[in-house]
């Protein structure tokens, strides 16, 4: 099924708060990769926080209103909405689903939006950029753009929890395949990695460090045991947990945990031959020199 014709590739783009500073490399590399593939990402004007997992424990409906305002902004543009953050993806989709299933909730949320001069009728499809690349852009177009195949790279594809849970209609909830397929197209060797959808601990790394460190440690330890020489991530919180505390989590699980961690978009960009600055590689906390065979400078 190889097609050379480019379908209309325009999406609304919701970067999310993490991508503004701490994880700006994810935003920069996403935009660069999209540009190379002629995918137009139109950032929502004046988007707000989606509420993530941390607002829901305080007030559920307020959290849904936060998400719904972004969906309303996307609806004004009439496009599908792409995001690269697993938490944003789940919360935005959840708001959509609950608004569709619960008419009282829908009415309450719409009234609230209207009080602020907006409205949302429920017609925006929320997508993760990873899934867009695999399902909309596809193997042929991505392979055709590869300039520097990642031959010899052994990659552990770590998707995190919320990419395929609770919404498991696009990928397997426990053994997700989308990222593995994509990374395979780049010429890399995908190592079997059964922890691909296990939780890194998320916010527990800060609130309950002894729990968070063990969860992140297991992921890094197994990636190394499986012979990976890097881990690819699809979520800003996973990325920081996996890259920032490798010494501590190594002590927590009693095994070496030092391994380079990159966003999957950075891996694509490297395979496309993009310069390090276009992927913000100098932002990464783990050394990439062993992989790239050259020093990364900003």
């Amino acid at each position, binding site marked *: 099924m190889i097609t050379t014709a480019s379908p209309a590739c325009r999406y609304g783009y919701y970067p999310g708060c993490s991508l503004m500073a701490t994880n700006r490399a994810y935003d920069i590399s996403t935009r660069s990769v999209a540009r190379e593939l002629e995918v137009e990402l139109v950032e929502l004007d004046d988007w707000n926080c989606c509420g993530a997992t941390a*607002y829901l424990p305080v007030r559920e409906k307020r959290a849904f209103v936060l998400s719904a305002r972004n969906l309303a902004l996307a609806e004004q543009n009439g496009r599908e909405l792409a995001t690269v953050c697993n938490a944003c993806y789940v919360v935005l989709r959840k708001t959509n689903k609950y608004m569709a299933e619960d008419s009282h909730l829908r009415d309450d949320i719409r009234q609230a939006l209207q009080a602020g001069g907006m409205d949302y009728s429920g017609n925006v499809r929320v997508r993760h950029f990873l899934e867009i690349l695999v399902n909309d852009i596809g193997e042929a177009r991505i392979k055709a753009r590869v300039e520097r195949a990642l031959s010899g790279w052994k990659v552990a594809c770590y998707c995190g929890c919320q990419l395929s849970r609770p919404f498991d209609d696009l990928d397997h909830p426990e053994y997700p395949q989308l990222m593995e397929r994509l990374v395979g197209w780049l010429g890399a060797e995908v190592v079997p990695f059964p922890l691909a959808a296990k939780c890194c601990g998320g916010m527990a790394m800060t609130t309950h460090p002894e729990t968070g460190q063990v969860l992140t440690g297991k992921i890094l330890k197994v990636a190394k045991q499986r012979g990976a020489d890097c881990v690819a991530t699809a979520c800003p919180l996973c990325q920081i947990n996996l890259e920032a505390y490798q010494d501590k989590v190594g002590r927590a699980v009693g095994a070496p945990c030092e391994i380079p961690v990159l966003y999957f978009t950075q891996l694509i960009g490297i395979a496309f031959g993009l310069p390090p600055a276009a992927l913000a590689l100098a932002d990464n906390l783990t050394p990439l020199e062993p992989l790239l065979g050259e020093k990364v400078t900003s």
Partner: protein
Amino acid sequence: MQTALARELCEEFLEDVYALPHGEKLKQCLQCGTCSASCPSSAAMEFGPREIIASLRAGMLDRVLNAKTVWLCVSCYSCSVRCPAGIPLTDVMYELKRLEVDKGLAKDAPGETMAHAFAETVDRYGRNAETTLLRKYFLRTNPLHALAQIPLAIRLFVRGRLEILPRKIKGLDSLHKMLAAIEENGRR
């Protein structure tokens, strides 16, 4: 907590859970324990989600609230997708967290402090600002723990990854009107 009050609260709480999408499926729990076996943080909990459901159905809400285990839920949805009865367990955990917030029962839980600091930051700016969030969190829990974060903060700072000043969204007034309007529509 008085047992009678606990029972009454438990009834009220279960009604809230049944009102969640698919919340009524809680009645179909067969106590198989798949949820507890799937939970990545159940090892750190006093008891896991299976026992939480058993306690709720026995009217022992106080037992659940006293255990301070709900804040260890990391929202990974493993239990929710594996539950053979289709119980939206992660949503039940959120509902329990909200009950604790509402009744002021979670004062010392770090997860609750984090959630509040997060909500305040988002309410004020329309977006989360990680530096502001963590400053609030550590000041309210143990400021000494913030010292341990300094080496990481420096590594992030030299890479330009620390946002020093939070940025407000332009439509903050409109967002505040929306949030005020939803508050009029009940607790959830």
